[in-house]
C-alpha cells in the first residue's frame, strides 16, 4: 500500500493498521506478585490514629465518589438562568403567545448541550473504575421518561392545542414535573432525604410556576430553578465541609 514490506503478509503495513484492536491491557491483579505486609502488620495503630485515619479516608473517598458536587449544582443554577432566561426574554411581550424565537431556542439548546458535556466530563472522572448495573438502568429509565414528555408535546401540537400550552407551559414545566416526581420517589426509596427534598422542591416550583402563564412561566422557572440549585449547592458545600 505504501511501498513498505508487510511482515504480517496481510497486504497492509502494521504501521498503518488502525483497524486491529489494541492489545489487551494486563490486569494488575493477575500480573502483580503478592507483596509482604509484615511492616504494616507490625505497626502499632493507636486508637486515636485509627479514628483519624478512618475519618480522613472516608472523607477523601466520599469526595472522590460524590456524583453531585457543589460546583456542579452552582453551574446548573447558572445554566438554567441563562437557558430559561433567554426564552423568557424572547416571549415576554408576546400577545398572543406564539412561542420562543429561533435564537432563544438556539441559546436554550446550546447552553443545555454545554451543560450535558460538562456533567458527562465530571461524572466520567468521578465514576472512573466504578461499575453498577443499577446506574445504567437508572440512566435508561430517566432518559426514556424525559423523551416521552417531549413526544407528548408533539402530540399536543398535532391535536391543534393552543401554542400557549404546546410551546409555553408544557415544555417549561412538564419535563421538571414528570422527571422531578420520578426522581423524588427514587431518592426517597434510597433514603437520600436531601436529594428527595430537592426533587420535591423542583416539582412544587414547576406546579406553581405554571400559574404565571406561557410567557411568565419561563421567567419564574429561570429564577426559581437557579435559586434552588444555588441553595442545594450551598447546602452540599456546607455538608462536605462539616
Amino acid at each position, binding site marked *: 500500500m505504501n511501498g513498505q514490506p508487510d511482515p504480517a503478509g496481510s497486504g497492509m503495513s502494521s504501521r498503518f493498521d488502525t483497524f486491529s484492536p489494541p492489545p*489487551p491491557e494486563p490486569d494488575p491483579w493477575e500480573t502483580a506478585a503478592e507483596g509482604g505486609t509484615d511492616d504494616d502488620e507490625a505497626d502499632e495503630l493507636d486508637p486515636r490514629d*485509627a479514628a483519624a485515619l478512618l475519618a480522613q479516608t472516608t472523607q477523601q473517598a466520599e469526595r472522590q465518589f460524590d456524583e453531585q458536587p457543589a460546583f456542579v449544582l452552582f453551574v446548573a443554577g447558572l445554566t438554567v438562568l441563562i437557558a430559561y432566561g433567554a426564552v423568557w426574554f424572547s416571549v415576554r411581550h408576546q400577545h398572543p403567545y406564539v412561542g420562543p424565537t429561533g435564537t432563544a431556542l438556539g441559546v436554550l439548546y446550546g447552553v443545555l448541550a454545554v451543560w450535558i458535556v460538562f456533567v458527562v466530563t465530571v461524572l466520567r472522572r468521578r465514576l472512573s473504575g*466504578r461499575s453498577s448495573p443499577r446506574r445504567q438502568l437508572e440512566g435508561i429509565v430517566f432518559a426514556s421518561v424525559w423523551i416521552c414528555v417531549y413526544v407528548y408535546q408533539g402530540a399536543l401540537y398535532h391535536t391543534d392545542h393552543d401554542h400557549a400550552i404546546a410551546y409555553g407551559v408544557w415544555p417549561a414545566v412538564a419535563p421538571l414535573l414528570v422527571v422531578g416526581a420520578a426522581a423524588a420517589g427514587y431518592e426517597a426509596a434510597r433514603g437520600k432525604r436531601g436529594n428527595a427534598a430537592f426533587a420535591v422542591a423542583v416539582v412544587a416550583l414547576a406546579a406553581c410556576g405554571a400559574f404565571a402563564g406561557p410567557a411568565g412561566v419561563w421567567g419564574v422557572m429561570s429564577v426559581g430553578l437557579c435559586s434552588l440549585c444555588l441553595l442545594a449547592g450551598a447546602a452540599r458545600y456546607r455538608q462536605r465541609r462539616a
Partner: protein
Amino acid sequence: MTVQDLDPLIHVPARLRIVATLAALPEDDTLSFTRLQELIGLTPGNLITHLRKLEEARYIETNKTVDGAGARTSVAITTRGRTALEDYTATLRELLGEL
C-alpha cells in the same frame, strides 16, 4: 474495653483504608482494582495481599471480567464487611470515650 477488642483484620492502616474506601461507595457499586490502588496508593502486590485477607474473611468480594480491552478485576465490600466496619467504628468510639 481494650485495643484487643478491635477487629484485628481491620485494625491495620492499609486494610482500614481499603475497607473505609469501599464502604464509601454506594451499595451495588464495584471499584476496579486499578482505581482502588490509585486511591489507596499501595503497590499492586501489597494491595493484593491485603485484599486476599479481607476476601478470606468475606469482608470484600472480587470479580473478574474479560472484555475486548482485557481483563478487569473489580472489588466490592460485602454486607458482612460493612457490618464489621460499623462494629469497628463503634468499638473505636467506646475506646476513645474511655481514654
